């Protein structure tokens, strides 16, 4: 029985990394901006969080630094694609590649650095809890924000039809920038979660594709926060389950088991989102398109 409790505990931590990043990306995609730089932002944030915690001894400052690093990179990306109207996909890819390289370069001296001894709270998973619950609360809050508040409606309007929002007098560019920065901050938080809690160390490339999974998840979850959360836990759960099965000696090819998390997540989300009208209704109509206020 205890092993199932542990399985659930580790599932929640595994899912939280992806959920945090994907919820952030969902908000900036709802405003019409695709940011493919998630992986790079997460890596830089993982390093920033790790370095700050090593330097100050305070884990919360580390999380703050991670969020800040993510937000800063996202802001640069935002200015490029929103004001200078560079191609969102190309700029995002560039940001991702930059983040991977830059974090490897800047992190050279932190490869063997040690995190300060943090007060052990007795239960190993307890220290994860604020962020684990935080991700759940965030998903609920986003559902409420996007569906029930005026500000959420404006954000969606900016993503659906920036021209109309502009005509109504909303500062489209600033709203988009805000959404992009929010997405970057959450990716940053997820990155710091990886280097401070999940695998508490720094090595280059340590995010290992989590950013790309988060990006894919927003699309498969048809931009619904609850589904993003479900998909993230499903992914985390099947990942842990397949290791659990291997450790208990179940005789299925491990390569097949390694594939399962991706397969299960895609199949489930495709099944629940198979209605094309539903996708049309949820996908921001101006996603990835540049906006020129004059036209």
């Amino acid at each position, binding site marked *: 029985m205890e*092993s199932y409790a*542990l*399985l659930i505990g*580790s599932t929640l931590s*595994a899912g939280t*990394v992806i959920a945090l990043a994907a919820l952030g990306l969902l908000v900036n995609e709802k405003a019409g901006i695709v940011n493919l730089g998630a992986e790079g932002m997460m890596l830089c944030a993982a390093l920033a969080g790790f370095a700050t915690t090593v330097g100050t001894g305070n884990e919360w400052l580390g999380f703050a630094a991670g969020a800040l690093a993510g937000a800063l990179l996202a802001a640069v990306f935002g200015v490029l694609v929103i004001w200078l109207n560079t191609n969102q996909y190309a700029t995002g890819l560039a940001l991702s590649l930059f983040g991977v390289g830059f974090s*490897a370069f800047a*992190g*050279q001296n932190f*490869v*063997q650095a*040690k995190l300060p001894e943090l007060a052990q709270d007795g239960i*190993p998973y307890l220290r994860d809890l604020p962020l684990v619950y935080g991700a759940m609360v965030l998903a609920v809050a986003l559902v409420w924000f996007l569906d029930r508040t005026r500000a959420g409606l404006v954000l969606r309007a900016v993503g659906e039809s920036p021209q109309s929002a502009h005509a109504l007098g909303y500062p489209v560019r600033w709203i988009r920038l805000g959404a992009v920065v929010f997405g970057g901050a959450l990716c940053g938080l997820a990155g710091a979660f*990886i280097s401070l809690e*999940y*695998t*508490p*160390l720094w*090595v*280059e*490339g*340590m*995010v*290992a*594709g*989590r950013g790309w999974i988060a990006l894919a998840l927003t699309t498969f979850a048809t931009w619904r926060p609850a589904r993003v959360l479900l998909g993230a836990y499903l992914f985390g759960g099947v*990942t*842990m389950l397949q*290791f*659990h099965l*291997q*450790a*208990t*000696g*179940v*005789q*299925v*090819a*491990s*390569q097949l088991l*390694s594939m399962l998390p991706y397969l299960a997540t895609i199949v489930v989300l495709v099944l629940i989102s198979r209605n094309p009208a539903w996708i049309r209704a949820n996908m921001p109509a101006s996603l990835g398109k540049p906006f020129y206020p004059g036209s």
Partner: protein
Amino acid sequence: MNLVNKRSLLKTAALSALALAGCGKKEEAPAAAPAPAAAPAADKLKVGFVYVSPIGDGGWTYQHELGRRAIQEKFGDKVETTFVESVPEGADAERVLRDMGAQGTKLVFATSFGYQEFVQKVAADLKDVKFEHATGYKQADNVATYDTKTFEGAYLAGIVAGGMSKTKTVGVVASVPIPEVVRNINSFVLGAQSVDPAIKAKVVWVNEWFSPPKEAEAATSLINGGVDVMYQNTNSPSVLKTAEERGVRAFGKDGDMSAYAPKAHLGSAVIDWGPYYTKVVGDTLARQWQGGAHWWGVKEGAIDLLKIADDVPQEIKDRVAKARAGLRDGSFAVWTGPVKDNTGKEVLAAGQVGDLPFLSSINFYVAGVEGKVPGTEGK
């Protein structure tokens, strides 16, 4: 800083080559005598290293870099070493290899398996350059291959694991199912069972060489399954770090990883390329470079279990010392029969020692390991 050094080295190399060429032309006609004046610089053996990852990876490449420094230390002015890091295992590798040849490098260490075809190609064109290819299996007149018996390090770690496991269950986070990795898993378990034959082992495959989050997840599931000592064949310190968090024990691999987890660390199976590298350079300087395939282990000082934790009982430390001494003088081999696989079939009869073909084709688990090697489930 490293990058700057490398660049300036290459630059000075190119400049001195130009200067030499210039000198040669000018003084060709008057007399042959002044030419030797420039000879000492030309006599310097140029040794080049091609690394697959950055030196800061804390593992594989870092150990090769230590080997390079050992060469520089031992031979001082007689050699000049250069390196290029983060060279992908693709067409870029060929360019880097050719470039080194063009700079006058006479001995090249290509330190990753994936360079194999490119080394072969370039070596066929540059006959006067000697190539040393790590972990490869294709030799040529001017291409030697070399590798380390990492399984001997795994066996020594296994002895410590056998002495330290309270649950009598050890675990391995495995990378990619190739013979080398399966051999390491088995050798680790054989080491543990040499202390306590009742030891069981669990193996979890992540099917990647480097993915810290996945390695941590795999380690977590091993711990949840009752494992209290872990070994790994992946490249990051993630397993060790997870052990530290969860209060169990684990090992470092390739390099000394004790700094990552002071409480969990039981020892590091450290590869030392220094002895082989200095031998090859010495041979080359004496114009006695041999080629062939070289597989060095504890005997040659190429691998050892270092920094064994203080709380390991003396009796266990003695067992490690005994096995190490046996490996050194050749009186002991890790793969000595009787060895049974986990279906009960005898794979090595009593007294029989596993030879090279046997060791390179291990695709079973020894008795006591749960499950089957991926790819052999149906058999």
